[in-house]
């Protein structure tokens, strides 16, 4: 994939992440520290977190097409880096009570669940698309079977 196109994809992901992080912080905060009050600076936090979370995704870029196995390995590396980034954010933030192990576990678990669910959703979407492609392929091959050399329309 061209790097420019890759960057455009990452920009789209950045905006999606900013929104999802704002929702996740709101839900986790409401569950563990619902009485907390913040200044206006907190509005920028989801954007900062999204930018930091975007960095690990760059490990999936390759000029050449990666094999499914190589991509799977890079995705696993991306998950590890994402966990690292999220825990770094949690420990660096004075507003997060990281002395409570359950808070750390919930953050790490949330990253894992969101990552797995997002990839599962994409896989299911691709599987449905592959099913349609196979159906069209079968029709195409039946149409031109035994007609090698004949020109397609």
């Amino acid at each position, binding site marked *: 994939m061209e790097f420019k196109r890759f960057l455009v994809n990452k920009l789209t992901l950045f905006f999606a992440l900013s929104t999802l992080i704002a929702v996740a912080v709101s839900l986790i905060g409401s569950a563990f520290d619902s009485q907390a009050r913040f200044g206006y600076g907190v509005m920028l936090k989801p954007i900062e977190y999204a930018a930091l979370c975007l960095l690990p995704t760059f490990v999936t870029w390759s000029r050449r097409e990666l094999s*499914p196995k190589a991509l799977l390995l890079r995705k696993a590396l991306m998950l590890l880096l994402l966990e690292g980034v999220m825990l770094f954010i949690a420990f660096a933030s004075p507003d997060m009570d990281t002395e409570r192990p359950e808070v750390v576990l919930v953050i790490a678990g949330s990253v894992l669940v969101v990552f797995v669910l997002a990839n599962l959703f*994409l896989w299911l979407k*691709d599987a449905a*698309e*592959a099913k349609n492609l196979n159906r069209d*392929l079968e029709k195409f*091959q039946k149409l031109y079977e035994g007609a090698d050399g004949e020109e*397609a329309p």
Partner: protein
Amino acid sequence: MDVRIEQIGKKEEELVLIRCRAVTDEVREIAAFVKSRQGRLSGVADAKQYEIAVSEICYIESVDGKTFLYTGSGVYESAYRIYELEEQLKSKHFLRISKPMLVNLMKIQAIQPAFNGRFTAVLHSGEKVIISRSYVKALKAALKGE
């Protein structure tokens, strides 16, 4: 080079004759084009030249500036660039599926998902090739005959 076309009777054998002072790359290119239009391509393997039926080719790949034709039983180097073969073979069910690769749609056994909107084409030869995300739209259109 002058081009003459002569109409012949139905019983006579059709022939493309190139009269040249030297067999240059240009002449080879013209000869290869004529062969490809007839469903054959020239390929080199073990320093020998072979005529390969286009219908036998599973996929074509460009590696480090060289173009290779893959049949179920062998690999042949072609003098053509991948974009030239793409142009010549698009009417023979060949389609670009990634930047360096063309696949023979008639040789695909199944298509499987392969993460990130990409797919894997499993060929009748057992080999697997990646269909890049940016070429999926063209694949869908080709299979629907659009």
